[in-house]
């Protein structure tokens, strides 16, 4: 009995010793935003197929958790739908770079019995609906944006997110910009003190509640609206055009905002209500948080190489999955930013050619 046991234990030990790969594998871990999960996991799988020596892992625990774990250096990079606050950055001595990886749009979705045409919303009207000052669908202000559409005398049921989310952050950020009332009464955040409305958990909860409730209006992520063929409204942008959310119009928002950003931007910018004739106003970046200075040079090299791949070759994978790619014009700025990452004082990356 003991003899068999010894043999078994030795055999297991031998197998594990032999099966450890000879080549050194770099393991990179990231955590954060649930919004970006689908794209990040797709990127990681694709990248790992081409580069077997780099093992990537991503945990979608929410932006808050991602920032916390990134700050504690439990993970190598974080992912967040909202940029880190100044105080959060000061807590880690500013050792963070915000790298935008893709973009998201947030269209309003609604369910009005008898209305099949696409509704148009202007900023102040949307804010009024979510503030509770506009309570009926046939309100004159909504009708003014929608000439020719027969709106019923139905109560508006507002549906918002009950869980904290980047989608709420983007939406409330937009509302704060177009409505001073909203900015003073509610403000922007991943979770806010909603004046009216029902809370639903997740985009799936919002869309289910909106579809089940006559007269409801809510907001969801663009990818979710496209995948589930939800009726979405067009929103008036800064240039005065009513734009429907799509990958192209969301990317146009970043292109329009680049004028205000400039190459030395730290990318912690909100691009809601951006300039540009085709820009969708409720758009935003989502960021990857990387350290300015890493302790491990090999790991830093691998992270930068992966990030650059994601920002260039990986961008084509964004649209089929429901995200919007970054404008190509941003690449030189991102390249310059990635070159500033150091490990032990030494820059780890000299550009795309020198990987």
């Amino acid at each position: 009995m003991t003899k068999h046991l010894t043999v078994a234990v030795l055999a297991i030990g031998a197998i594990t010793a032999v099966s450890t790969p000879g080549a050194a594998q770099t393991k990179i871990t990231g955590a954060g935003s649930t919004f970006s999960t689908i794209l990040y996991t797709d990127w990681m799988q694709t990248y790992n197929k081409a580069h077997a020596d780099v093992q990537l892992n991503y945990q979608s625990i929410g932006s808050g958790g991602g920032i916390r774990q990134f700050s504690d250096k439990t993970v190598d990079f974080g992912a967040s739908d909202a940029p880190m606050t100044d105080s959060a950055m000061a807590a880690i001595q500013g050792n963070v770079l915000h790298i935008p990886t893709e973009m998201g749009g947030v269209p309003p979705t609604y369910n009005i019995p008898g209305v099949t045409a696409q509704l148009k919303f202007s900023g102040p009207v949307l804010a009024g609906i979510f503030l509770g000052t506009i309570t009926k669908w046939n309100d004159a202000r909504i009708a003014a944006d929608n000439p020719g559409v027969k709106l019923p005398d139905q109560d508006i049921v507002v549906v918002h997110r009950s869980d904290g989310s980047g989608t709420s952050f983007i939406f409330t950020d937009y509302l704060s910009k177009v409505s001073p009332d909203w900015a003073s009464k509610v403000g922007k955040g991943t979770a806010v003190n909603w004046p009216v409305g029902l809370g639903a958990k997740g985009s799936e909860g919002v869309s289910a509640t909106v579809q089940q409730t006559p007269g409801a209006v809510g907001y969801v992520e663009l990818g979710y609206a496209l995948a589930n063929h939800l009726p979405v409204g067009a929103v008036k942008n800064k240039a005065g055009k009513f734009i429907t959310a799509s990958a192209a119009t969301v990317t146009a928002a970043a292109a329009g905002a680049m004028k205000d950003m400039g190459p030395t931007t730290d990318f912690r910018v909100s691009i809601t209500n951006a300039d540009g004739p085709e820009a969708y106003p409720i758009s935003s970046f989502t960021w990857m948080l990387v350290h300015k200075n890493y302790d491990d040079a090999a790991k830093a090299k691998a992270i930068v190489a992966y990030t650059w791949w994601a920002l260039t070759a990986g961008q084509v994978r964004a649209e089929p999955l429901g995200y919007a790619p970054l404008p190509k014009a941003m690449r030189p700025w991102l390249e310059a930013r990635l070159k500033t990452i150091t490990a032990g004082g030494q820059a780890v990356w000299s550009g795309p050619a020198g990987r």
Partner: protein
Amino acid sequence: MVGGATPDRLSPAMPTTFPQTIASTTGESIAPISTLSAAPRPTRRYYGDRIYRWLLTCLAMTLPLLLVTIVAELLVSAWPSIHKFGFSFIWTSVWDPVGEVYGAAPMIFGTLVSSLLALVIAVPLSLGVAIFLTEFAPKWLRQPVAFLVELLAAIPSVVYGLWGIYVLIPLLRDYAAPPIRALLGWTPLFSGVFYGNSMLAGGIILAIMIVPYIAAISREVLLAVPATQREAALGLGATRWEAVWGAVLPYGRAGIIGAVMLGLGRALGETMAVTMVIGNRHDIALSLFQPGYTMAAAIANEFSEATSTMYISALFEVGLVLFVITIGVNAFARLLVWRVARGTAVGSKAL
């Protein structure tokens, strides 16, 4: 007490010190037990006994220790919020993560109201099921129905939530709410427009979830009531209903109250099903048609994305309040069962 002298307060027949008294009564000399020669115990077994006892003690202590660590963790993490808001946390209605003002009043109200509503609906239902199964059901029906009722407990909470969103709420909105509104819309309890996600839907879902617990235990309690009780009542001329209500139920009231408290405990902590149908609104409203919030639902919804320390701390404090309320309800339940059990035989020993 040596020798045959027994003290006045004891009856002479009762030996006080064994075996001296026996020696004095029988006249024989018997050595005390401790000097009775027995085979010497093997040393290994003696230590094994000690180790066994020590191991069991450790295992038994882990559970109270776990409780203590949970409370400690809750207190430590909630401390920043307790320090900032003090007792006003319990009666403030504002929950503003942007302005960093937190108050748990709507959540406490919602938890208590939804659980109470669930009890109001579930207790008559479960008692009815239990009484039916023990008194009136034909023998061939008892097992299948009992099995089906207990199967309700096996359904995951999320599935209840989905059923609530896609079946219960449309049903309530289209068929239940209009007549209720027409009849009782003037009362503060049923005023306002019914949108679907509401305290009423939350209470109904919770009721369905706790019925199997109360029904199963009540059934066991009623089965344990001796047949003589029922027969005595029937023999005195009571109707079936009077026999049950007057003789059987009071006999088992301790166990039934225990079952109800178990169901209440389940209802207080239920998270997923409630958050999908209750409307998730930080508001105190008297009307059951209005949306509400519960503490467990709020924590489940907001914890993963909470970024600032005060926000997380406030959520921990909500957890602490929920913990305290649950402990309080359980303690009250124990007390109630103990008081009610005095005078009945069923369940009083076990409780």
